[in-house]
């Protein structure tokens, strides 16, 4: 075997091992979701040799897989979490909509219209990203209490929308910056107004960027914990917050918790794969292009 083949093999093996290590916790967690209670608590830990069960999913989502196909029976009980998935979806979707609409308008102006203090304005938007959530959550808790927004979709949508605004503005600005200004200029010469150019020309050209921004906003809302923990109490709860419900005084229902966790990862993962082309740009708030 010549050295280049050897080093290539070594690299491939190394890459699979490293990614395997990172994937292991996800595999393990998913396997817990398919285990009976006793299999979870076995020692040594049981990684592969167990009889899979859908009991956990049945308890958490009311879904059962039997000989008659898939049946859904909405159950009751503390561990029935299907409504919580719905809460998470509504909050994430509406807050994404809010952030993307507001950010797209602002980002267009920041990309196209020259005005004094534009650079400082961008920096100000960036600096709001540095606020620790706890510094926002406490005052918001008191305002929300006053206006009856605790535990409401409106309250959660507003706070998650705000949280995603700096990212959305900076990211959308970078996508608009990619579209040549000459297009706007020639349309202005033809007598089109700013808003018409924005709606008819620039917006359709930035479709891919809007999709990428939306996916990232959705995921950040989907995974957010501190605001959801602080600003909701009983009737509305997102998935990250309810995971602690499974910790009870008689022990932790790990299997049920894992079923909820595993099910909540999959939709977000599919989403993020759809915009993989723009993922790095999104993670760096528009400052790096892939």
């Amino acid at each position: 075997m010549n050295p280049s083949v050897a080093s290539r093999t070594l690299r491939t093996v190394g890459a699979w091992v490293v990614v395997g290590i990172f994937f292991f916790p996800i595999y393990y967690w998913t396997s817990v979701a398919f285990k009976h209670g006793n299999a979870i608590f076995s020692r040594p830990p049981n990684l592969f040799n167990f009889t899979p069960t859908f009991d956990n999913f049945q308890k958490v989502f009311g879904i059962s897989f039997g000989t008659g196909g898939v049946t859904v029976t909405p159950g009751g009980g503390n561990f029935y979490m299907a409504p919580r998935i719905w809460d998470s979806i509504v909050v994430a979707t509406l807050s994404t909509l809010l952030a993307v609409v507001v950010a797209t308008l602002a980002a267009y102006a920041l990309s196209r219209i020259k005005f004094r203090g534009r650079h400082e304005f961008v920096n100000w938007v960036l600096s709001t990203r540095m606020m620790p959530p706890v510094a926002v959550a406490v005052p918001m808790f008191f305002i929300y209490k006053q206006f009856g927004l605790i535990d409401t979709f409106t309250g959660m949508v507003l706070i998650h929308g705000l949280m995603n605004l700096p990212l959305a503005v900076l990211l959308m600005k970078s996508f608009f910056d990619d579209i040549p200004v000459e297009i706007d200029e020639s349309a202005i010469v033809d007598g089109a107004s700013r808003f018409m150019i924005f709606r008819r020309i620039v917006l359709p050209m930035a479709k891919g960027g809007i999709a990428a921004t939306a996916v990232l906003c959705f995921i950040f809302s989907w995974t957010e914990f501190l605001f959801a923990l602080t600003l909701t109490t009983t009737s509305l709860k997102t998935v990250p917050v309810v995971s602690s419900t499974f910790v009870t005084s008689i022990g932790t229902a790990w299997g049920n918790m894992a079923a909820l966790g595993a099910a909540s990862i999959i939709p977000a993962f599919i989403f993020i794969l759809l915009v993989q082309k723009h993922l790095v740009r999104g993670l760096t708030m528009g400052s790096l292009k892939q």
Partner: protein
Amino acid sequence: MRVAQVKRFVVSDHPLPWLLPLVAILLVFTVYPLIYNIWLSFHEYVPRKRALEYVGTQNWVQLWNDARFWQSLTITFIYFAVALAFELVLGMAIALLLDNDGFGFGFLRGVLTMTLVIPPAIAGMMFLLMQDPQFGVISYFLQWIGLLDPARPILATASTALAGVLLPEIWQWTPFMVLIFLAGLRALPREPYEAAMIDGASSLQIFRRITLPMMAKVIAIAVLIRGIDLFRVFDYVFVMTSGGPGTSTYTLSLYAWQQTFSFVKWGYGATLSLVTLAIILAVASLFIKVAKVRW
């Protein structure tokens, strides 16, 4: 104002109509909380009267003399530094490893993005289970190779609890660094490498003299974005240890949150979160200047 002027103002070149919704939301949700926190930091809730009372600079004096504040600042800083160091070094190493067009490498890069979509609160729970002293797979492995004393569980021992909390942190966010560095590596020009090969440079020399300097901007951005989030860490400690055992994993955000919501010390909690904000703002602004990061 004449109608034509109004129309021109609304749809033309003035940025205000475009920025108005953004400015309104930012004023309500960031400037107001900031002012409210400053006001609150000079008050304290008095349970007996069920009301806030003006206490002057008492909270700030208390902060200065509060050993637990200084301890949580230290813990936050250690958390920040250790996590950032691991994520940077591991991230760069894995990025270099995966920077290849061979069969399967695209798939591996895709698998790595999975950790990024997991809610940190749930990732914390995952590692809580894996570090369980009785049936946790990580604890079992560490006990099996003799690194871990079964009588001293990772998360229940003051000296190792922070390491236990750092584990999900590093696991979840190293792939973030990998993806950013990979994008940077893929965008590098080929010529300097070809020249270095001809000159017979070693791969370590190539990395230090060519790759690292050309990646400086990418690394700076990754450090800035991750660094801001690290300094506000809350989720992992909240679900895994709630600051314990004792006070060994109390971070600033957790301390501020608990002062407000568990101990009803609204004023002191606000003071703590203001300090957290001030530190992040100061360090990040300085970093942006020195590293010349621009948006």
